[in-house]
């Protein structure tokens, strides 16, 4: 209870007591009781009024006035339902989209990791330029972990798709082999069973989800025997339900599935395997200190070799959170910027609407000023109205955001980490309230300024005509021009994304990825030696080709080889190359839809050192010369027998790399292979394919089975997501610009009804009137568009990393956005212009 409540408590009792005493006094003086009571009340005065006045003593005047202003604001808004609805809807879109994007930013970028001491977690990266990502040799990791003193824990992981089989069948699952202090680092604890110790082989730890899905949450499965890639293992334990693998995953484009199984990295894995490393810094150790130590350890491990030029260190240490979110940060920044522009446009539109209303309410305001309301008080009233509107819009925006967020989480690509956890929490709520208030102040300022300059005398003199004068019209023209500029920026940005999306999706004739089913297989090395692998491959291809409707089927193994010797086209004989090698059966290339440009295909009977190359490889190796029949070192010498057209068949967001195709029968390395099957109709194909696999070896199931179309679409899921969002923003911006320019021109026409009437009466042609109005609209639009192009030129540069095959200053996109908006402006001003031309001078002048 505060002072006010304490003081006012018992006021009525106090007064009743007072009257009682007075009555008793009167009775003692000899009055009859009834009269005594009446006399007491007479002497006291109006009880209700006294109570009211006493309460009034405690009232804070500003709260009082605020409540009054609020009540008035609600009445004003209710009286103009159309305006209120349009304004709230506009704001809901602007605030809602911003809230949704901010929820994503909050979840992806701002929230700390769910691991212990998230602020101390760092990423130890060794950038490998050949694979374009960080890869630490695990032998190095083992040395780092024993020698480094900067960390309280260090862990490594290495991705691997595995096939887990139990008595009920086999299923593929995304797994990581982990080493070092992985469990400590991530604060993992088991829900069931136990977590394996470092170096403990053949013990499998499962995620809660996969345990539910594949083992029916059966606790007896713990400790049970399974096979992992054909080798015996046991299920050691199940991780707690909320446990998540929150590390950068370079493989998400190809394998978006979550990490659901964990195995230990054993000693033999450490020798020639690459992985990723994270660590927890000791308190007080800086990243610079840790990096200096790491560099010195690395130099000790790999002393400079005088035979080779010293390479600059590629080691780097970054906060784990930064590393995890680096891929999403640019896109989210662009979306947040786009959201801000959209909200600005919404505010401008409402400011423009409010200005039109203020001018209609000019007389009301003038009267209020005339009867003694201070200008500040009247200003505050307008501001309270604006803020009420803004907060109502914000509330509607929150509803919209909840819905939009659910949609975003569903559409969002797996490669945006932690997107699935996005929700509207307190921080998001605070953000929404802040931007609502900011928007309210922003669009409340314009009518406030207009009011400030109102000449009381003129306003009252003008009489009852609400649309007299072109009150605030100049500000409104400026606002709408600004709005056009913002729309140009948003439309250009969305246009650039759309153009690069179309470029990514452009496919050559005959590719038809929707007719291709792809999958991976892994042959356990323990049971399949080189000869057995070849036999398996031949049998698989034979069986797949025999499925009715299959046009082509094949198998391929891809690898990278760095350090291939110089090609004929190289200027220096010491140059080295990175090779993308692909040992592919003839059916694989046909199934993929490759097109032969020169020479011949590889055949099953190619035994010698012959290769097929793609056009990029031909350009890199021999330039403009015909490569057929030439020998290339890949790294052994081999003769080029054919050239195929470049085809982006593994990912859409990058050009096809120079690639060398070897005869499949020459490889003995099938530790991870791709299988492709092309058929006229793939709808029944997966079941048939699964049957054939099971018929050969039930312990080797195919995994990651999907159409090539789907797989390729997955590789550009982030881009599609960005396009979807920015496209929504641009579409909203477009509508806002349309409404904005229409509103201002329609208002200008209404304000000039009398003038136009006079013109028509004096013989002005209808076409002249139309031209006059349209010219006014176009002047605003063109000014806005020119300013917008300049702004877009400066801003789209930030999007460079999000684009593919499109320049950030592509003139076609800029022209497209500008022309679209110009045409829109033309239509939006033509409509009121036609109305203006239809003005009957008799009616317009009688309006006087």
């Amino acid at each position, binding site marked *: 209870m505060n*002072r006010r409540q304490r003081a006012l408590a018992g006021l009525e009792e*106090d*007064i009743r*007591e007072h009257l009682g005493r007075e009555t008793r006094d009167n009775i003692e003086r000899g009055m009859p009781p009834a009269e005594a009571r009446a006399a007491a009340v007479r002497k006291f005065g109006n009880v209700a009024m006294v109570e009211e006045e006493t309460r009034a003593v405690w009232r804070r005047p500003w709260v009082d006035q605020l409540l009054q202003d609020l009540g008035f604001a609600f009445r004003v808004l209710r009286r103009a339902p159309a305006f209120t609805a349009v304004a709230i809807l506009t704001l809901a879109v602007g605030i809602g989209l911003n809230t949704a994007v901010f929820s994503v930013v909050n979840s992806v970028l701002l929230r700390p990791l769910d691991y212990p001491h998230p602020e101390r977690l760092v990423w130890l990266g060794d950038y490998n330029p050949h694979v374009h990502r960080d890869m630490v040799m695990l032998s190095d990791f083992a040395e780092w972990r024993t020698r480094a003193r900067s960390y309280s824990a260090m862990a490594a992981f290495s991705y691997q798709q595995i096939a887990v089989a139990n008595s009920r069948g086999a299923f593929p699952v995304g797994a990581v082999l982990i080493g070092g202090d992985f469990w400590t680092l991530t604060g993992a604890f088991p829900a069931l069973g136990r977590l394996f110790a470092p170096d403990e082989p053949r013990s499998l730890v499962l995620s809660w989800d996969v345990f539910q899905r594949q083992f029916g949450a059966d606790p007896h499965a713990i400790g049970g025997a399974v096979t992992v890639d054909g080798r015996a293992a046991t299920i050691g334990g199940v991780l707690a339900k909320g446990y998540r693998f929150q590390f950068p995953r370079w493989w998400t484009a190809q394998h978006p599935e979550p990490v659901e199984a964990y195995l230990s990295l054993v000693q033999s894995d450490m020798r020639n395997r690459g992985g990723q490393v994270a660590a927890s810094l000791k308190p007080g150790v800086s990243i610079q200190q840790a990096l200096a130590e790491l560099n010195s350890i690395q130099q000790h491990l790999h002393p400079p070799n005088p035979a080779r030029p010293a390479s600059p260190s590629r080691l780097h240490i970054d906060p784990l959170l930064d590393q995890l979110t680096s891929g999403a940060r640019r896109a989210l920044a662009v979306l947040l910027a786009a959201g801000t522009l959209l909200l600005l446009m919404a505010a401008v539109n409402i400011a423009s609407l409010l200005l039109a209303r203020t001018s209609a309410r000019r007389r009301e305001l003038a009267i209020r000023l005339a009867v003694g309301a201070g200008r500040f008080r009247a200003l505050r009233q307008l501001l309270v109205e604006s803020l009420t509107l803004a907060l109502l819009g914000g509330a509607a925006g929150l509803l919209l955001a909840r819905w939009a967020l659910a949609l975003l989480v569903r559409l969002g690509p797996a490669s945006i980490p932690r997107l699935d956890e996005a929700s509207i929490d307190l921080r998001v709520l605070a953000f929404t309230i802040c931007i609502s208030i900011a928007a309210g102040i922003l669009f409340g300022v314009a009518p406030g300024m207009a009011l400030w300059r109102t000449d009381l005398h003129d306003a009252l003199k003008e009489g009852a005509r609400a649309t007299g004068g072109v009150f605030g019209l100049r500000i409104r023209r400026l606002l709408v021009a600004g709005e056009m500029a913002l729309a140009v920026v948003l439309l250009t940005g969305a246009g650039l994304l759309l153009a690069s999306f179309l470029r990514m999706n452009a496919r050559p004739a005959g590719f038809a990825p929707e007719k291709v089913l792809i999958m991976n297989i892994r042959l356990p090395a323990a049971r399949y030696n080189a000869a057995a692998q070849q036999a398996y491959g031949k049998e698989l291809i034979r069986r797949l080709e025999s499925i009715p409707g299959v046009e082509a089927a094949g198998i391929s193994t891809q690898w990278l080889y760095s350090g291939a010797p110089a090609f004929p086209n190289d200027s220096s004989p010491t140059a080295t190359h990175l090779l993308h090698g692909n040992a592919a059966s003839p059916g694989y290339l046909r199934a993929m839809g490759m097109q032969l440009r020169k020479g011949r295909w590889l055949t099953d009977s190619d035994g010698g050192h012959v290769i097929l190359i793609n056009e990029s490889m031909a350009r890199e190796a021999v330039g403009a010369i015909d490569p057929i029949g030439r020998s290339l070192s890949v790294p052994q010498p081999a003769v080029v027998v054919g050239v195929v057209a470049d085809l982006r068949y593994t990912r859409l967001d990058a050009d096809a790399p120079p690639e060398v195709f070897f005869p499949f029968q020459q490889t003995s390395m099938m530790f991870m292979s791709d299988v492709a099957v092309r058929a006229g109709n793939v709808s029944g194909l997966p079941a048939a394919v699964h049957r054939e696999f099971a018929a050969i070896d039930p312990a080797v199931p195919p995994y990651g089975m999907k159409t090539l179309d789907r797989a390729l679409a997955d590789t550009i899921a982030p881009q599609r997501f960005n396009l979807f969002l920015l496209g929504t923003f641009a579409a909203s911006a477009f509508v806002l610009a349309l409404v904005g320019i229409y509103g201002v021109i329609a208002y200008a026409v209404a304000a000039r009804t009398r003038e136009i009437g006079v013109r028509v009466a004096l013989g002005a042609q209808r076409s002249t009137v139309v031209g006059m109005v349209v010219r006014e609209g176009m002047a605003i639009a063109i000014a806005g568009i020119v300013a917008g192009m300049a702004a877009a030129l400066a801003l789209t540069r930030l999007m460079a990393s999000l684009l593919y095959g499109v320049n950030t200053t592509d003139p076609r996109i800029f022209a497209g956005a500008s022309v679209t908006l110009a045409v829109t402006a033309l239509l939006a001003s033509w409509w009121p212009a036609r109305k203006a031309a239809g003005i009957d001078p008799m009616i317009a002048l009688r309006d006087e």
Partner: protein
Amino acid sequence: MELLQGTLDLLILRTLAPGPAHGHAIAKAIERQSEDVLQVEQGSLYPALHRLIRRGWITAEEGVSENNRRAKFYRLTGKGRKQLHLETTRWEKLARAIARILKPAEENPS
């Protein structure tokens, strides 16, 4: 005679100077002390009391009156006592000044 504005506050403070009292007692005391010259509706006492509470010059507390009934007692605070002194001095000055203007002959026989 109507009560001058602001005078009521002073009278309440003066009345509470000897010790706490409840509302009715204050009203009676004011009437008695001013020998019924100052006519005021007793009700107007209450807004004045609350104005004084709000300024921190008096406090209100629950208590039991002489005939064993619950009542609210108003008590002068230290701040209120200072204010009473200040107001009294000012009032006396003002009264003297007005008196001088109205009866110059009596005050200044020269």
